[in-house]
């Protein structure tokens, strides 16, 4: 039996995906703001973002603002679709048990 989408179905990654999905399509979120929203440590957040990037769900862009490094994360089209599917699945579960 297959398992739920393990990439999304993890508390920190779920919050990352939700935070990114709430933005207009293509909008980037700075790492520090994402950290504040998700409430994860820097290392933990970085590791989960890398997992999402490797899955093709998130894209990372690194640059400098003056001399300060800046990391921005955005949801890819594939990531948005996967997350919407995931949310639809959750609703299906709730609706199915409601009918029982």
């Amino acid at each position, binding site marked *: *039996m297959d*398992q*739920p989408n393990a990439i999304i179905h993890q*508390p920190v990654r*779920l919050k990352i995906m*939700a935070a990114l999905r*709430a933005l207009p399509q293509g*909008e980037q979120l700075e790492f520090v703001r994402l950290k504040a929203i998700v409430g994860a440590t820097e290392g933990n957040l970085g590791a989960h973002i890398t997992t999402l990037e490797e899955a093709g769900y998130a894209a990372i862009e690194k640059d400098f603002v003056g001399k300060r490094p800046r990391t921005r994360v955005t949801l890819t089209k594939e990531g948005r679709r*996967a997350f919407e599917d995931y949310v639809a*699945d959750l609703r299906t579960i709730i609706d199915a048990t409601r009918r029982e």
Partner: protein
Amino acid sequence: MNLGATAMTLSRDEAESTLRDISKTERRSSNLFGYRFGAPHLFLWGAIWMIAYGATYLRPEWSIVWPILIVVGVIGSFWLSWRAKSARADTFGWRYGATLVAVFLFVGALFAILPPHRDAQVAAFFPILVALFYLLIGIWTRGVRMVVLGLAVGALTLFGYFDLPAYFLLWMAVVGGGGLILGGFWLRHA
């Protein structure tokens, strides 16, 4: 995604709890994005209030700066939204324009029915209107900071109008304009 698999491995309680987490995170993210989008507009309009109210306090004949600065503010707001280059900004232009037209129509109709008798009434009315907008935006987006800003601007305006009539314009320049600028910093660092 695998609908069948997810349905088989999550209970209804887990699904509901996960949806609640998602909703909470999305709301927080959306609010922070809105705050970041709105902060520069507060800086701009705070500065305009400071200059315009301050000028009118110093010399009543300098009230001519108001229409000029309002035009500057409107153009500045369009520019700020264009600079943001976000999907939200794509729809911002016409909504902002339509909102301004609606507000001008409303104010025109209101003043035709209930004409103000003193300049101070007009000077107090617009900040109250701005406070109402902040409050409504905060209520509808669950943006606590916008609600606080709306209540603060409204309360400070009423206090200045009723308790400091001789210094009302100065009060609005310093507390109203300064308050908007501080509010902008508050939103930006949310």
